[in-house]
């Protein structure tokens, strides 16, 4: 509950900060502001899938249903954020690079990851009792796949802007932008946690009702 309130408060503040307070960028102009949504979404999506991966491993080892629920809920919410990434990316790219899409390493990896989790969610929807275990395996393989997909895409080509935030030497953004970016990241992560909690609780209730109903 408290998470939802926090999220509901933080998100609009973050967006207002991004639109009104953040300074204009020298080369890209106004369109760069979408960075404040795009980057936090990426971070949140990858965080969510990491949670799915860890929960899937835990589920296969312990067979405790709570891990399965966590994995499924996190994958759902993560997929929403990843979809947001894939939508905001091209919107940013068209005015700035002149193209909606390119097949460089980061975009390719994000897109294929989207398909991996789409498949995961389809599998959960359509499989029988084995479903939880099969889904866990898909999540594990999918997660381990990410660096490999990136590797193969790098071997083919690269165009995405060089990292300016996540670099070994530290962020290259000016402080004023960085602060707003970090605020938005926190806001997105809180939102993710809020949705995650709701979803997990929903699934727990659903199985309780299911058990109560059976003879």
């Amino acid at each position, binding site marked *: 509950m408290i998470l939802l309130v926090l999220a509901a408060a933080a998100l609009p503040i973050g967006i207002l900060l991004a639109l009104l307070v953040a300074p204009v960028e020298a080369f890209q102009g106004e369109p760069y502001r979408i960075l404040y949504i795009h980057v936090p979404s990426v971070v949140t999506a990858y965080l969510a899938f990491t949670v799915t991966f860890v929960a899937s491993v835990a589920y296969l080892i312990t067979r405790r249903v709570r891990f399965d629920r966590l994995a499924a809920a996190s994958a759902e919410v993560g997929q929403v954020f990843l979809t947001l990434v894939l939508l905001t990316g091209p919107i940013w790219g068209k005015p700035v690079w002149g193209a909606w899409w390119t097949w460089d390493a980061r975009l390719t990896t994000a897109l294929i990851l989207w398909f*991996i989790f789409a498949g995961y969610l389809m*599998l959960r929807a359509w*499989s029988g009792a084995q479903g939880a275990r099969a889904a866990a*395996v898909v999540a594990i*393989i999918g997660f*381990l*796949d990410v660096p490999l*997909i990136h590797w*193969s895409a790098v071997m083919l080509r690269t165009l995405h802007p060089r990292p300016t935030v996540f670099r070994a030497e530290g962020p290259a953004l000016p402080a004023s932008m960085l602060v707003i970016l970090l605020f938005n990241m926190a806001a997105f992560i809180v939102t993710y946690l809020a949705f995650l909690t709701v979803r997990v609780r929903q699934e727990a209730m659903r199985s309780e009702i299911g058990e109560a109903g059976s003879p």
Partner: protein
Amino acid sequence: MSAFWVILRKDLVVEGRARDLLPSMAILALLLLAMTGATGLRADAAPAILWITVAVAGSIGLVRSFHQETDQEQLHGLRLAAVDPAMIYLAKAAANFLIVAAVELIAWGAVMIFFDIPIPRRPAALAVVLLLGTGSLVAMGTLLGAMLATARMREALLPVLLLPLCAPAVMAAAGATARLLSEAGGPVAGELRLLLAFTLLFVSVALLVFEHVIED
């Protein structure tokens, strides 16, 4: 070890008698290649379309490899006979590999003809790429086939899961194939390394999780 040969032989004999899987896969592969050529695909895109075709046509066979075992609970029989699950997986994977490899050879012949590809100058490297690429697809696809044996929409789900999960292998294989067939040529060591890493990694993962996946 003998369980491996028994299961492998059984799967091949079943296909030999039914003779339905291999022809369907081969016709689909040829059709995809023919249509891409007919709709104007240029020769330099042929390696990519070859690998996509093999993955999609291969999916048909991979779906079947475990579904036929649920029909009369043959899989239970195998488990009751205390067969090592790893052996079941390896035998199934081997059978699938032979069938998919056959389809791939046919597809390869079609690609050379439809797109007028000259005789490759480095056949050994090309053979390794074909082997590892097919091996990766089959290793993953066999595991997926087991996981999806009781799922609804398994025919659609298998390629939907197989292609993204095997994306590194398909991308590396297509890239390497393209380079080996091009005028300029060039080193494919990087792609081969990735293919090898991928195949080893996912066969290991498959062997680890396979028995969890088929119990119920």
